[in-house]
């Protein structure tokens, strides 16, 4: 069942399109990722979905409700977590939860039933009486999520929820998201972290305000032209510079222990590249095939588009 349906969505600021040509459908129970670098238009799309910003063109239908025609009705079905911490720092954890529960008219009884498990799942139980302003970044995000979930929304919109969050809290956060997915909550998440993108069921890749590709991570990787190989070297930077612009090299990405190169035909190109490195005085093992990540994919696909 399609829960979120976006068609031809666009928004411009002072004549410049912050988002354009957004087209995707999200099925019930998906974790759908909006992936792209800063300035790709992720936040603009999220705000339009949340009904807090009016699109210039296109349509959004959430749970059968036309968001442009009746944003207030759609707000009953969804929860939105903005990128910037939106809770009250001068209110305690409990007071913030209560505030959002009351705004969604959750009864006192239901609030009490839901608060306990949510606090337990996020290891926030000991901090109920602490002011939100005195929580760490990760705990703030978890509190944001608890407040977003207190009215059991059908759809959750998360705008870069894990930016600046420590790894432990990030793991907690994703564990909660998987749990929600099992309960049938549909999640739209934006992220600039490509390792997180791989955890999504489907992705839309955003670049310069436009939607480029939209598919499952696996199928997106399969779209990648050529093959990915990994050169292991202590002089990674020099290796990259030596390989730059060589025939058959579609893309290069620097890693801590070497360089990943995207080649149009690995069997044909590797001997020539090894010779190039040897002549530059750089020692390197023969490259091994590498499993592409979303980051490699992103670089490859965008490079492909530019040429």
């Amino acid at each position: 069942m399609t829960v979120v349906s976006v068609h031809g969505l666009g928004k411009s600021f002072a004549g410049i399109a912050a988002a354009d040509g957004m087209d995707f459908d999200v099925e019930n129970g998906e974790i759908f990722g909006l992936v792209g670098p800063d300035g790709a238009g992720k936040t603009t799309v999220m705000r339009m979905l949340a009904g807090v910003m009016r699109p210039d063109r296109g349509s959004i239908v959430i749970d059968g409700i036309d968001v442009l025609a009746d944003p207030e009705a759609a707000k009953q079905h969804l929860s939105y977590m903005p990128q910037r911490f939106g809770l009250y720092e001068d209110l305690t954890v409990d007071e913030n939860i209560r505030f959002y529960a009351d705004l969604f008219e959750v009864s006192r009884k239901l609030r009490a039933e839901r608060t306990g498990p949510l606090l337990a799942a996020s290891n926030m139980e000991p901090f109920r009486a602490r002011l939100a302003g005195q929580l760490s970044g990760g705990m703030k995000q978890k509190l944001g999520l608890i407040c977003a979930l207190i009215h059991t929304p059908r759809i959750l919109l998360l705008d870069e929820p894990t930016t600046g969050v420590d790894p432990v809290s990030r793991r907690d956060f994703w564990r909660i998201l998987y749990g929600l997915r099992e309960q049938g909550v549909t999640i739209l998440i934006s992220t600039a972290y490509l390792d997180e993108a791989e955890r999504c069921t489907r992705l839309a890749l955003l670049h310069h305000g436009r939607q480029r590709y939209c598919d499952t991570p696996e199928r997106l990787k399969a779209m990648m032209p050529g093959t990915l190989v990994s050169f292991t070297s202590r002089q990674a930077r020099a290796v990259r510079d030596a390989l730059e612009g060589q025939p058959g090299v579609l893309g290069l990405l620097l890693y801590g222990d070497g360089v990943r190169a995207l080649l149009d035909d690995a069997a044909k190109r590797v001997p020539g590249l090894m010779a190039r490195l040897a002549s530059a005085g750089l020692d390197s093992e023969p490259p091994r095939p590498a499993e592409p990540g979303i980051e490699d994919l992103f670089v490859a696909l965008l490079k492909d588009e530019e040429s």
Partner: protein
Amino acid sequence: MRPLRLKAIAVKEALQILRDPISLVIALLMPFMQMILLGYGINLDVRNLPTCVFDREASQDSQALLKHFQASPYFRIVETPSTYRDVIRALDGGACRLAIVIPPDFSQRIADSGGSAVQALTDASDDNTANIAIGYAQAVVGAYAAEATAGAAARAGLSTGPLQPVAVQSRVWFNEDLESRNFIIPGVVALVMALVGAQLASLTVSREWERGTMELLVSTPVTPMELMLGKLAPYFLVGLLDAAFCLCFAVFWFKVPFRGDLLVLFLTTSLFLVVVLGIGYLISVAIRSQLGASQIGLLVTMLPTVLLSGMAFPIDQMPKAVQLVCTFVPARYYIAILKAVFLKGSGLLELWRPVAALLAYAAVIGFFAARAFKKRLE
């Protein structure tokens, strides 16, 4: 309008007031400071006016006249120069505001022609005080003259018939002691209400923008009406609390008479609070920084309330054009009500005009305030 959402906003806002030092200072300390500063600071009474006397005759008669000046509570003789030059220096230097000069032939002239003049020089750089000083000086000299005439008549063995065929018998109403404080303090109450109401309300929406809490708030189903009423409800209570404090302070500390009905005061104060909170809320919606909003709030409440509301300067003495401007200052109606309720004990019937004006203001501002906020980010 959903009661639970309204309550959520009101409770949240109340907690924020209690935890915000700036709001607390505005709500609790400002009324106290205003009452003290303005209650003591603005005093239009002329008493103990520094005076110098230049007695060029130094006779029994001239000394008798000066005794009258010494006995008057309005004058305080600070200097007795012996040359005109010293008199001028005293006036120029501000050592005295009034100089009395008695001519060298004072007694002689009274004896010869039955009348003499006394010179009063006054520093009219403050014209109001100068006017009052001259009036008082005339009264003192008049009292002396009446006494002298009566004395002369008695010595001549004449019956003291009616010396003045017509005399004004004045009785002062409402502010019997002619204390300017009784006239000022009710106005200060209005100023406190206006300042506290508009200042606090001007912070309430801009705070959400500034702290980044607005984006989440507008993504919830809360309606603009619930937001406005919920946010202003705690400030309304703070305003009433401050009004009660000001009333007690005025009555028990400054001893301003309160002759009216507490209910009338409560009703009209509530009405005025609706007006100033509405103004503050409109400013807060329009301006997204707390500092900017509170500055504008101060400007649109403080200046008109001090200058154009009849708090200290009577409106009917102003030029016609300024009087027209005053019509648009809501505080003037509330101040008229306050003065009448405090000093005259007026009820709602006598006050129907200013009450109707405040009602109209509350309706108009409420109308615009309810529509001002849009649940959008742009």
